[in-house]
């Protein structure tokens, strides 16, 4: 049991937790945060794999840097869209309940 094993397990748990948030929570903010947590979990696996080498593998580091910027872009779009959904819904509620 070393730190790589710990973070591999943590990453997997975080991924499933994020998925739980996306599937089970109704509010869009929770869904958006859930997706971001899933992404962070994937980054954690990347970096845990990178830390196996000595010195640490630089390729996953670069991939995660790219991924972080992609994640913030997606989050900015998602939040803007959420605001529009909330504005258009009758009770100003940011959920997808009334869209069916």
């Amino acid at each position: 049991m070393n730190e790589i094993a710990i973070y591999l397990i943590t990453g997997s748990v975080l991924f499933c937790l994020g998925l739980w948030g996306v599937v089970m929570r109704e509010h869009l903010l929770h869904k958006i945060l859930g997706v971001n947590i899933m992404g962070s979990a994937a980054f954690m696996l990347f970096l845990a794999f990178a830390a196996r080498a000595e010195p640490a593998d630089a390729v996953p580091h670069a991939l995660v840097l790219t991924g972080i910027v992609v994640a913030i872009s997606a989050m900015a779009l998602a939040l803007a869209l959420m605001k529009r959904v909330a504005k258009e819904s009758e009770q100003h509620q940011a959920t997808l309940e009334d869209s069916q």
Partner: protein
Amino acid sequence: MIIVDLLLALTIVLVAARCLYTSNLAESVVMFIVFGLLLSLVWVRLYAPDTALAEVAIGAGLAGALLLATLSQLHLTHAAKATAMARISLIIPVLLGGALGVSLLSLVQPAPGLSDLVMNNITQSGVEHPVTAVLLNYRAWDTALELAILMWAWAAQRALGPNLAWHGVRLQGLVLVYFSRLMVPLLALVAGYVLWQGAYAPGGAFQAGALLATAFILAFIVQQAQLGQANPAVIRRFIHHWAVKLLWLGGLLAFFVVGLAGLLLGYGFMGYAPAYAGALILAIEIAATFSIALILAALFTGEGRRYE
């Protein structure tokens, strides 16, 4: 150190669960910011200082600012409480994720990777820091496309129509103004330092761009808080000036021009002449820093049209 790792892992899982579970959206957002900060600690523990820097600046800082701004624009800040079924079902991701993680333990020992290739070619790459070499030389195409993603995230956000109004509080006193007069130049200075340092140590265009974006956003917020929202925000208009908009595309254009030049000179698409690689990378990084900073700031400020 294993105890630190265990504690960190446990805390981060609890924080993530709380972030998704609580029905108070403000708490959710704060928990997400804490999650970002803890993640950056994890990245440090995993020997990834570059990503830790970026995570603090972008994953916790900018994302936090975006989330808080969103929260202040929403009418309702409480979600429905998690149902009993949802509460019980929280055990599933923990068990499933744990099982998944344990099944990955075969990957701990052998360490396949591109580390050797990265280090063997580093003298050819024009920079000394391996992460910068990967980002701007070996896998420059990823980075170019990622600037495109930023660009189109902005275009997509604009396509959604006008933004919601802020529920800002007008502040008394000039503390924030003096603070921003101190901080904005300092942030710009640090951004320049981080950018320059990227050639041989952790740092580079991403972190520098995020810092510079923070400077813009800070100036914007201070202006908003001091003047009240009726006044047009100078920062927003500066960012959206047509000449400044050309800088938004600067990073993408720099990548493409250098990439095509490499193609025509026989180094392959996105290739550099080894003798000039260092200078070209620095030029691209400077352009990319401005692009990242301006677009991230524009994603925060919006173009200025608001719903009545």
